[in-house]
C-alpha cells in the first residue's frame, strides 16, 4: 500500500506540473484553435510573437473545433479559429461562435469575394482544387470540371472521400453554378468514372496515378509542391504527374480558402484582431506562400515559383459566400448518389 501511495502521489505531482503550464486568459496572450498542421503554423506564430510580444497558445485538431467552442460557451478561451477550409468557416458561423471582424486592414487587404458579407470570416490564403494528370497517359493540357463526368475517363479518376471538406467545397461550387439537379447528374458521372472507391488523401491521388491505378487524381495545389520539394520519399509521386489547373466552362478555377474567425466570446479580442490583421500582412503572406505553397490572398505578394509553374491562376468568380451556402446540398448529394460507396 505504501508503494502504491507513493506512486499515486508521484503521478499527482507529475500532473500538477504538466497543467501548471496551461494557459490562463492573462493579457499579452492570444488563444488560437486551429485545423492547420502545428508544424506549419508555428513559424507564423513565432514570428507574430516576435513582432508583437503577444504569446500564442494553440490547440490543433482535425475536426470539431467550432463545436468545441460552442460547447465551451461564454467561458471558452478561444480567440481565433484558423481553418484550412471554407467549410469550417461556415460551420463556425452556423454554430454561432463568431463575431464580426471589424478591421479596416482586413477590408482593404482581402478582396470582397473572399470575405463574408457580414464580416463573420475572412480568407487568409487560397489553394486551388486541381488535377494531377499522368505524364505518360494524359495528353490533354486543358480539362474542365464538367468534363470529369465525361465517359472517356471511365475507370481513370482517383479522388478522396466525397464528404471531405475539400471535395465538398468543389461540389458546392458546382451546385452554386448549375443547381442541384445538374450537380447530381454530374456527380453520378464522376462516380461512374472512378477507378476505385474514394479513399485516402490528396497525396494518395498522386500516388495512385504514379502506380498506374488511375490516370488523373484530384488534389490541392500545395500537396503536389510539398511532395516535389519537401518530401524526397514522395517526390516520385509528384514526378509521375503534372498539375493541370482545371476551370469551369467559361469560368475560372475553384479555390478554397484558409481563413479565420474571431470567436464570439474571445477573452483577448484585441490581440485576436491583431493576429488576424498580422496574418493578412505581407510578412505572414510570404511565409504562407513559401512554407506551404499557397496562393496569397493579398494582392502583390509573390507566388512561389513551383506554384507559378502550374500556369496563371484565374479564380472562379463565384463569391465564396455563395459556395458556402450550397455546402449542405453538396454533402447530401454525395450521400444520395452513393459517391463513397
Amino acid at each position, binding site marked *: 500500500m505504501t508503494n502504491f501511495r507513493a506512486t*499515486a502521489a508521484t503521478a499527482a505531482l507529475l500532473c500538477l506540473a504538466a497543467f501548471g503550464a496551461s494557459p490562463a486568459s492573462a493579457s499579452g496572450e492570444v488563444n488560437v484553435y486551429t485545423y492547420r498542421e502545428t508544424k506549419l503554423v508555428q513559424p507564423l506564430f513565432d514570428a507574430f510573437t516576435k513582432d508583437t510580444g503577444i504569446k500564442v497558445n494553440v*490547440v*490543433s485538431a*482535425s475536426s470539431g473545433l467550432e463545436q468545441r467552442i460552442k460547447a465551451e460557451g461564454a467561458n471558452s478561451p478561444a480567440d481565433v479559429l484558423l481553418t484550412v477550409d471554407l467549410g469550417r468557416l461556415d460551420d463556425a458561423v452556423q454554430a454561432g461562435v463568431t463575431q464580426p471582424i471589424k478591421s479596416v486592414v482586413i477590408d482593404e487587404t482581402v478582396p470582397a469575394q473572399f470575405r463574408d458579407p457580414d464580416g463573420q470570416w475572412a480568407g487568409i490564403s487560397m489553394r486551388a482544387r486541381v488535377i494531377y494528370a499522368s505524364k505518360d497517359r494524359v495528353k490533354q493540357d486543358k480539362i474542365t470540371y464538367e468534363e470529369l463526368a465525361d465517359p472517356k475517363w471511365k475507370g481513370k479518376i482517383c479522388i478522396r472521400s466525397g*464528404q471531405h471538406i475539400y471535395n465538398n467545397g468543389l461540389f458546392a461550387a458546382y451546385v452554386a453554378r448549375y443547381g442541384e439537379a445538374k450537380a447530381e447528374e454530374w456527380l453520378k458521372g464522376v462516380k461512374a468514372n472512378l477507378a*476505385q472507391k474514394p479513399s485516402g488523401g*490528396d497525396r494518395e491521388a498522386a500516388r495512385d496515378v504514379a502506380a498506374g491505378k488511375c490516370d488523373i487524381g484530384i488534389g490541392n495545389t500545395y500537396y503536389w509542391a510539398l511532395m516535389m520539394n519537401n518530401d524526397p520519399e514522395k517526390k516520385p509521386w509528384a514526378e509521375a504527374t503534372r498539375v493541370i489547373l482545371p476551370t469551369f466552362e467559361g469560368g475560372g478555377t475553384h479555390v478554397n480558402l484558409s481563413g479565420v474567425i474571431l470567436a464570439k466570446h474571445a477573452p483577448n479580442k484585441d490581440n485576436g484582431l491583431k493576429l488576424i490583421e498580422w496574418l493578412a500582412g505581407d510578412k505572414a503572406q510570404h511565409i504562407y506562400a513559401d512554407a506551404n505553397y499557397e496562393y496569397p490572398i493579398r494582392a502583390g505578394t509573390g507566388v512561389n515559383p513551383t506554384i507559378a509553374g502550374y500556369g496563371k491562376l484565374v479564380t472562379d468568380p463565384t463569391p465564396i459566400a455563395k459556395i458556402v451556402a450550397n455546402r449542405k446540398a453538396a454533402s447530401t448529394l454525395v450521400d444520395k448518389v452513393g459517391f463513397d460507396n
Partner: protein
Amino acid sequence: MTRTTPSGRIAAAIAVATAIVVAAPVISIITLAMQPAPDVWQTLIHYVLPRSLLDTALLLVGVGALSLAIGTGAAWIVSLHEFPGRRLLLWLLPLPLAIPTYLAAYVYVDLFEPLGLVHQTLTAWMPMQDAVRLLPTLRSLPGAVIIIALVLYPYVYLSARTMFQFQSAEFAEAAKTLGAGRWTIFWRISLPMARPALAVGTALVSLETLNDIGASEYLGVRTLTVSVFTTWLNRGSLAGAAQLSCFMLAIVAVLIAVERYGRRNVTTEFSAESPRLTQRTTLSGIKGVGAVIVCLLPVCLGFLVPLLYLAHQSFKRGLFANFDMALWRDAFNSIAFASLATSAALLLGFATILAWRWRPTRLRFVAMNIAQLGYALPGLVLALGLLAPVLAIDNMLNTVAASLGWSLPGLVMVGSGAAVVIAYVIRFLAVPTGFIKAGFERIPRDYDDSARAVGAGQATTMRLIHLPLLRPAVLGAVIVVFVDCLKELPATLLLRPLNVETLATSIYQYASRGSFEEGALAALLIVAASIGPVAWLTRFSDIPSGPA
C-alpha cells in the same frame, strides 16, 4: 453482516459518488438525445443509418468470429500441448494488445498501398501495373475485420487460456478412455466447457471494436462510431449525434447481456485449491513445428510486423537521431494522464468493492454494478456525454467567481485536462473493480472472521490479510488500465485542453493529414510503453484478463 464503521461509511459514500459520476455521461447523452434534430434525421435515416448499422453489424460479427478463431485456437494449442518454443509463445501471444487498433490500420495501409513495400517487392517479378492489381484493398470492411481482429484476439486468447488451463483432467481422461481423439475432446469437451470464457473474451473484443474510431475511419468503414463523430462534427448536430449514441448504447447493452450470460456459471470454480490439471500432450516433429507456426502467425501479424515497420520508419527518417521536444511533451502528457487516471480508478474501484465486501447492502450492490458500466461506453459517446456536465461545473465555478468579484477562472475542468482524466477513469474503472472483486472472491470470508476473532479491526485485516492476497489482482488492474489509457483516442481527442497533445492524438493527426510515417516514433513509444506491462500481465494470466 458487518457493523457499519466510519471507514465503511466513507467507502460506501465513495462507491455511491463513483456510481453517480459514471452514470452522468449516460444520463447526459439520453437528455441530449431528447432534443429534436429533424433536419439531420432526414439525411441520417435515408442515407447514413442503414449503411452504418449494417457496417457496424458486419464489423462486429467479422472481428468477433476471427478473434474467436485465432484466440481459441492459440489458447488451446499452448494450454493443452507441450512443444519446443511453447514458453516463449506464452509470452508472445498477448503482445498484440500493445498495438492500438488505429496503429495497426495505419501500418497495414502503408505496407499494402500502391508503391508501398509490398508493391515494390512485387515489382521485382512483374510490371508495376500488374502488381498493383494484386494488392488487397485494405480500406474496406474485410480489411478492417482482419486488421482489428489481429490486434484484439488476445482478449479471447487470455480468457480462453484461463479456462483451458484449469479444466480439470478428469473429463478429458474419461473421454480418452472412451476412445475419443484429441479433436473430439476439443470439440466435445474443452470447447463447451470454455464457452463462458469465450463469450466474455468475444464481448470484450466487440466493445473494443465498437469503441474504435481511428481504424474504422481510416479504413473507410462507416460504423456508428464514425457516424456519431461526423454527425456532431461535420453536420453540427449534437442532438443527432446523441441519438445515434443511444443506438450504440443499445448494441452495448446486448453485448453486455451476452457477456453476463456467458459468465453466468463462472463463480469461484478455481478458487483456493487447484484442481488436478490436465497433463499436456507432447507434440513432436512436424506437429510441434506446425503448432509453433500456427501460434507464431498471429503474433507476427498483430505485433511484430507493426513494431518492425514503425521502427524501420523511425530509423529511416532519422527520427531516433533528432528527438523532437514536442514528442517528449506528448509522451509526458500521455503518461501523466494515464498515471493519474490509473491511480484514481484504482482507489475508486477499491472503495467500491470494499463497501460491498464490508456490508453487502442493495445500494452498495447497485453502486458496484454501475461503477463497472463505464467500460461499455465507447470513448466517443463518453466524451460527448461528459461534455455537458463538465462544462456545467466549469460555468458554475465562473458564475460563483463572478458573484464574488474574483477574476474568472475560465474552463477549469476542460482547461486543466481534468476532463480527460475523468473520462479515462469512467471508461476504465470496470477493470480495477472487476479485478479486485475477483481477487476478493478468492479470499474466503473465514479469513475475515478469524481476523476479527483475534480482535483485528477492518483496517488491520485489510493491511495484513487482504492487501497481500490482492497484490496480483491490483497489479494486473494497474497494468491493464495504464495501457488502455495510453492507447485511448476518441475521448482524448475531444476533451484535451489547449496546447496539449498526447502520443495518441498526435499520431492520429499525422495520419489524418496523410503523413503517418512522421508520427512513427510517437507510435513506437506507445507500443514500447505497453509491451512491458502486457508481457508482465501474462504472469497473471490465471486471472480473468479483462474486467470481470
